[in-house]
């Protein structure tokens, strides 16, 4: 279908860029391929060397800041599958740039940090390779223009995340967390793929930058809710939204650099990025707002309360990350100018303080050997630099002035004044603000707890003697803190170059931010609510021990968690597949065969149901007495085989029916067939007699009467089916064209008078060659079967059985050789 293009909707100007731009996403992959080798030669300095890549990407991306400030959209790419119009394409706008700068900027310090954190680890090269791969995937994701390009990078982030979480794969908890993350985010990715393909179906376009213009038309489609649902599930699983939130805290099994990078600053934001990216296409509807704000709010409160329950540094941070992601989803869901501004501010602010906090947590772990908040204290004396970084990070988490997160709070609380009427919208906004205040206060309390419990108070004994880490360990946290304050003070530059371009990309209209510091702010509603948040946060912090105990008891009384639910689901799946496998692969051959023959009978009889007709009696000609005789002999043979009481009887009876068939061939003008059949039947009988008399095989029918009835019935029905099929086909005219052709050309073209043999050795000569190959292969296989014994090839002199086998093997191959010769002999008649 062709959708209507919106008029003058997208304000961003579009221009093209050199394909070399793709290197931004691809260079980290090249670096990843070299990382293990590099590690072999440079050991401890690998981190420093590899950090050059993200650093140069960061600097290169800075050159786009000016263009983005003019609200441009620049695209680049190359043909991928031209037949489908598919391109491997990238584009960059304000939103992409903001994300890409965060990814490459934070990435630089994370790579440095990894080098120090995993100092002396034998697999550091592998770890750094995974990290670089992830960085490339993430950059590719935020810069992707093509829908399929986007999806490929989306899944790559899931895969690299799996590799990184499971890095310490000898621990089961680590493996479990990795699988959990992959199942949830990868499963969500499939929904996203369906959504993207649906989007392509609707617009017939592959490029996001061109789909933007069809936003209003897409939202009018009846199928829009389906599209929305698919894309939202993709985003929610990635960004750990309720009820898919539980994989993120478990992902803390990964080494701390991974937690700091993937699970706070970048990968989990991919879902938020997706929502922001699709906001101009899907956003602005009631469904969008309701689903996003409700899911986001639940996630925010859930994450924040769960964070209060934890005492492990990384767990506390992980849960607050869940909460922060919820908050971002709420803000995108609200979708007003202020809310979008708040979202971008919060996104940046959160990346700064949470990334820093994780690096600090890792540093503490590294220095003291523990991450339990109740076991730490007084670290400001021994770790002064880390302490400074922690103060800045906690200020960001609390949203204090001078940090960029302060403005995020101001802007998000401003939605309350968006519409001053006491309508339903106001009530909805009011409840959202209450949710945000609660969430922010709880997160602030967690931040304060980390700062005060770990760095102040008495010095507690820890497994390691606390000491300040190396430069690489604290540099990242400190620099992020500096950036946090820089962005919170250099308001003009930050607003114009980062904030407004990014917000405009999401909002799809020019967004103007008015951030400032002034005394008159102190009386505005947002500031009052901010102050309220701080008071509440301090209050919660002061009572954090009591709250933690209470929440833990509550969780224990509840006795169920989403995490346990995941186990139940996974083991249920394994058990289910086990049961299905056992149901169909029960190991009883006769039942497999029953299935086969029931299908056979059904395939014969069902199509003939109602259409079968007996031929007119005038068409039926009776057989001559000798023809009857042949069939009667065959029937006697068949019955005798079935009812035979002894082996010899069965074998002889088998010979009888075989010879009857041979006689039938001779009677009806097929002497070659007859002779071959005679030969083969004779051999069969001889060989069977030789083998059967040597083995003490049980010839009796061991079936139960009920089984006999079932098998007999099935056999009868199948026999009737074959009969009816033959009668039906015999009533249709026979197509003799091929037979005629062979008959007419046998002498003139192939110079052979025995038409059957001419067909075999000339017209279908290659088939015959194949057939001979089959016979030969069988001979080889038989030889192998007899030679190979349980314990490998046997010398075979001592044992009785092998000898028997060998003598039989000779007969067998001799027999097949004879069979071949007989065919060749009959074929030779052709030339006569």
């Amino acid at each position, binding site marked *: 279908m062709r959708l209507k293009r919106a008029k003058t909707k997208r304000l961003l100007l579009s221009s093209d860029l050199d394909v070399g731009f793709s290197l931004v996403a691809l260079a980290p992959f090249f670096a990843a391929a070299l990382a293990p080798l590099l590690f072999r030669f440079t050991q401890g300095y690998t981190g420093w060397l590899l950090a050059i890549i993200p650093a140069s990407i960061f600097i290169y991306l800075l050159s786009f800041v000016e263009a983005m400030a003019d609200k441009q959209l620049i695209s680049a790419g190359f043909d991928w599958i031209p037949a489908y119009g598919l391109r491997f394409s990238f584009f960059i706008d304000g939103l992409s740039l903001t994300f890409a700068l965060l990814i490459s900027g934070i990435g630089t310090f994370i790579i440095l940090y990894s080098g120090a954190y995993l100092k002396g680890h034998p697999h550091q090269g592998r770890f750094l390779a995974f990290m670089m791969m992830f960085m490339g995937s993430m950059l590719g994701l935020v810069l992707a223009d093509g829908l399929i390009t986007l999806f490929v990078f989306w899944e790559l982030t899931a895969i690299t995340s799996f590799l990184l979480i499971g890095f310490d794969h000898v621990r089961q908890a680590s493996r479990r967390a990795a*699988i959990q993350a992959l199942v949830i985010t990868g499963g969500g990715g499939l929904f996203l793929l369906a959504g993207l393909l649906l989007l392509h179906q609707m617009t017939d376009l592959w490029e996001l930058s061109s789909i933007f213009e069809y936003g209003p038309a897409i939202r009018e489609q009846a199928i829009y809710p389906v599209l929305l649902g698919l894309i939202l599930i993709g985003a929610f699983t990635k960004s750990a939204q309720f009820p898919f939130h539980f994989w993120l805290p478990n992902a803390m099994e990964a080494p701390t650099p991974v937690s700091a990078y993937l699970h706070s600053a970048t990968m989990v934001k991919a879902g938020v990025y997706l929502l922001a990216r699709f906001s101009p296409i899907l956003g602005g509807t009631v469904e969008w707002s309701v689903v996003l704000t409700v899911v986001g709010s639940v996630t925010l409160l859930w994450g924040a309360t769960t964070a209060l329950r934890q005492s492990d540094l990384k767990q506390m941070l992980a849960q607050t990350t869940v909460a922060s992601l919820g908050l971002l989803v709420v803000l995108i869901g609200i979708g007003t100018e202020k809310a979008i501004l708040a979202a971008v501010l919060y996104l940046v602010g959160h990346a700064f303080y949470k990334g820093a906090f994780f690096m600090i947590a890792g540093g503490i772990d590294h220095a003291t050997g523990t991450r339990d908040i109740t076991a730490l204290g007084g670290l400001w004396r021994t770790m002064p630099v880390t302490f400074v970084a922690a103060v800045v990070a906690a200020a960001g988490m609390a949203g204090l002035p001078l940090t960029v997160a302060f403005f995020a709070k101001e802007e998000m609380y401003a939605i309350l004044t968006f519409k001053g009427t006491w309508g339903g919208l106001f009530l909805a906004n009011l409840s959202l603000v209450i949710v945000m205040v609660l969430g922010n206060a709880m997160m602030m309390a967690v931040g304060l707890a980390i700062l005060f419990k770990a760095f102040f108070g008495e010095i507690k004994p820890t497994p390691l003697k606390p000491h300040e880490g190396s430069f690489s360990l604290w540099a990242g946290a400190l620099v992020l803190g500096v950036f946090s304050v820089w962005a919170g003070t250099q308001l003009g530059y930050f607003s114009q170059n980062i904030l407004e371009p990014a917000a405009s990309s999401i909002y799809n209209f020019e967004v103007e931010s008015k951030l400032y510091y002034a005394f008159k702010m102190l009386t505005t509603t947002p500031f009052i609510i901010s102050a309220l948040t701080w008071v509440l946060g301090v209050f919660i912090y002061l009572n954090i021990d009591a709250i933690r105990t209470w929440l833990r008891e509550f969780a224990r009384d509840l006795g169920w968690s989403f995490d346990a639910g995941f186990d139940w689901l996974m083991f249920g799946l394994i058990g289910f597949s086990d049961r299905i496998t056992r149901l169909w692969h029960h190991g009883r051959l006769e039942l497999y065969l029953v299935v086969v023959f029931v299908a056979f009978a059904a395939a014969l009889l069902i199509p003939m149901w109602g259409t079968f007709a007996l*031929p007119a009696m005038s068409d039926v000609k009776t057989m001559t007495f000798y023809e009857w005789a042949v069939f009667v002999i065959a029937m006697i043979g068949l019955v005798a085989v079935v009812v035979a009481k002894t082996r010899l009887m069965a074998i002889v009876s088998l010979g009888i029916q075989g010879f009857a068939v041979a006689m039938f061939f001779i009677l009806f003008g097929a002497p070659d067939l007859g002779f071959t059949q005679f030969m083969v039947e004779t051999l069969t009988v001889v060989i069977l007699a030789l083998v059967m008399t040597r083995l003490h*095989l049980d010839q009796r029918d*061991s079936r139960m009467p009920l089984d006999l009835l079932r098998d007999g019935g099935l056999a009868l029905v199948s026999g009737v089916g074959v009969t009816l099929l033959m009668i039906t086909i*015999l009533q249709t005219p026979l197509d003799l064209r091929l037979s005629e052709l062979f008959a007419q050309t046998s002498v003139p073209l192939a110079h052979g008078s025995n038409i059957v043999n001419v067909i075999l050795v000339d017209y279908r000569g290659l088939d015959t060659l194949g057939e001979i190959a089959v016979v030969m292969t069988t001979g080889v296989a038989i030889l192998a*079967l007899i030679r190979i014994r349980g314990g490998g090839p046997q010398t075979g002199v001592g044992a009785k*059985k092998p000898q028997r086998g060998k003598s039989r093997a000779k007969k067998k191959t001799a027999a097949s050789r004879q069979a071949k010769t007989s065919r060749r002999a009959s074929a030779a008649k052709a030339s006569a």
Partner: protein
Amino acid sequence: MTEFLMAPFVGAFFAAAIYLILSRSVIRMLLGITILGNGVNLLIFIMGRVSPEVPPIVPAGALRPSELAANPLPQALILTAIVIGFALFTFLLVLGYRAYQELDADNTDNMRLAEPKNAPRPPMSY
């Protein structure tokens, strides 16, 4: 056409073969497969019509066979089938023989090497 009367006999071949194949004794199954091969060959032969009884051979000096010559095409197919069927028979015979030696069983119910009755359950862990 006499073929109509022959059809039930072919059906009887199939019925006997299937009845034998469904038994759990390896040797009876082998007999069944041999009979099934014969049944299929007969089916192909009869479907090519059997009325003319002269072998499809061009008389010396002539360019084409007599009007009464049998249909050569099914014969060519069956000739191949007989040989392949025999190869299959010998292979299955040796297979059954070796299975009897290794597993000490000629009843398929007792041949549970590949799919044992108490196969271990998949591990319920990560």
